[in-house]
C-alpha cells in the first residue's frame, strides 16, 4: 500500500496534509483511486462552504461509480483544485499530488479522529 508517512488519513479514504499556515490539503488515497478505476470527473466542491467533520465535500466519479468525498474535520472550504476539471485522471496517476480541496479547520492543529498511515492500512484489512 502506497501511504506517505507524513500524511494523515480518514477511514473514508481521504488523505490530509497539514500546511505551515494551519490549513489542510485533502485528496484521496492510492487505495481509493485504485478501487474507483479511471476517474473522469471531480466536482460539487463548494468554495466558501462551512462543513462539519464527515459532511460531504464533493464527488469523485470514475467510469464505474460515483463516490462522495468528505470533510475530514470541521472547517471552511478555501479552494478547489481547478486543474482537475481538465485532467481528472491526475488522481489516478499521482494521487498524493493531485489534491482536491483545501480546508481552513475550525480548530487548527486538532486532527484527532484521523489515522496515521499504519492505522489507515490496518483499517483496510
Amino acid at each position, binding site marked *: 500500500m502506497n501511504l506517505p508517512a507524513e500524511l494523515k488519513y480518514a477511514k473514508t479514504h481521504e488523505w490530509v496534509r497539514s500546511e505551515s499556515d494551519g490549513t489542510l490539503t485533502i485528496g484521496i488515497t492510492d487505495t481509493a483511486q485504485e478501487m474507483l*478505476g*479511471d476517474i*473522469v*470527473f471531480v*466536482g460539487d466542491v463548494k468554495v466558501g462552504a462551512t462543513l462539519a467533520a464527515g459532511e460531504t465535500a464533493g*464527488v469523485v*466519479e470514475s*467510469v*464505474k461509480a*460515483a463516490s462522495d468525498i468528505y470533510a475530514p474535520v470541521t472547517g471552511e472550504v478555501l479552494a478547489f483544485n481547478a486543474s482537475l*476539471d481538465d485532467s481528472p*485522471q491526475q488522481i*489516478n496517476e499521482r494521487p498524493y499530488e493531485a489534491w482536491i480541496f483545501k480546508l481552513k479547520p475550525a480548530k487548527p492543529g486538532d486532527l484527532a479522529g484521523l489515522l496515521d498511515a499504519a492505522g489507515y492500512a490496518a483499517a483496510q484489512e
Partner: protein
Amino acid sequence: MPLRTPLFDTHLSSGAKLVDFGGWEMPLHYGSQVDEHHQVRKAAGMFDVSHMLGVDVTGPDALPYLRTLLANDVAKLDAPGRALYSCMLNEQGGVVDDLIVTLLASQRFRTVVNASTADKDVAWMNARIAAAAADVVLTPRRDLAMIAIQGPAARAAVWSAWPESRPATENLKPFHAAEVGARLVSRTGYTGEDGFEIALPAGGAAAFWKALRDAGVAPCGLGARDTLRLEAAMNLYGNDMDESTSPLESGLTWTVDLKDTAREFVGRRALVAAPPQRALVGLKFLDRGVLRAHMRVATSMGDGEITSGTFAPTLGFSIALARLPRKDGADPQPGSEVEVDVRGKLLPARIVKVPFVRHGKALIS
C-alpha cells in the same frame, strides 16, 4: 464458489482486476478500462466472453421451432453461416433474453445467450419444445470458450495469429460465420467496431489467447466492453430491457418481424395488441459529471428513467440510454432537452440519435 471461464488463470497471471458478473468471476480491466476502450476503437482488443452460453438447436423441427420461439424471423437465414440478432419474448411481449442465432447447416443452429440468464433460457427453450412436441434437441455448449476480437485491426490480427483461418473468413460479411475445424468464427461483436467472435473448444482457449496477444491484441475487461457497447447504443439485457419491457419500448422494433402474418411467435399477440407507451432514446449530458442507470429523467411528457449511463471515452462526455414516455403515438424527438435528477439536482441533457459512435467515429458532438 464463483463460476470461472477456461481463461481464468490467464486473466489472473495478466494482472486482471476481477469482478463478479452474474455469478462469474470475470476481468473488469487489466489496468485501465479507458485505455482498453481506446485500444478497441483504434486498433484491436479482445474479450473473454466464455461466460455466455452457446446452445445448439438441432433436429427436423429446428427451423419451425425457432420461428415461433424468436421475435425475429429465422427464415431470413437462407444459407449456412448467416446470423441474426433477436429477442426471445414471453407471452406478455417482455424480453426473456436477447441472442444471436446462426444457421450452421440444415436443421442445425447455434444460439448464443447471456450468461446471467443462461439457465432460465435453456429451461424456457426446453419448455417450448415440450409444449409444441417439436422434434428438436438442445445442447448447451459449456465445452466451448468464446473470445471476441474487436477493432479496426482485429481481423488482420486473427489471421496473423491463426493463418489457417484466413481463406474461410477473409470474405465473411457482417453477421456471417464460418466453421473452421472445431471453431466457429462469426463477424459479429458488441463494440460498434469490426471484428470476429470465435467459439472454440475450451482446451485450446489459453494458447489462442496468447497467440492473439502476441499478434498485438490487447486484453480488455468487462469495463471497456460496457463503455464500447453503450457508445454503439447496443442494449444490455437486465439494464435496457428485461421481462417487463417489450422490444418496442427498448429500441429493438427493427428486430421484431411481423411480415409473415401466419407466424405466431411467442409474444406476438401482446405486441400487436397495445402500442408502446415508452421509447428507449439516447441522451447526451450537457453538464459535467456522469449519468448513471436508474436516474430519473424529467420531460414535458412526464418522467422517464435512465437504463444505462456512462462516461463515453471516445466522446469525452457522458451519454445514456433512457426509457421516456411517448405521447400521441410519437417518440421523444432528437434535439429536445430533458432534465436528469443527478443526486438531487436537475441537470440538462439532450435527446440524440443513436448510435453515439460507430467504427471509431463520433456521430454526435
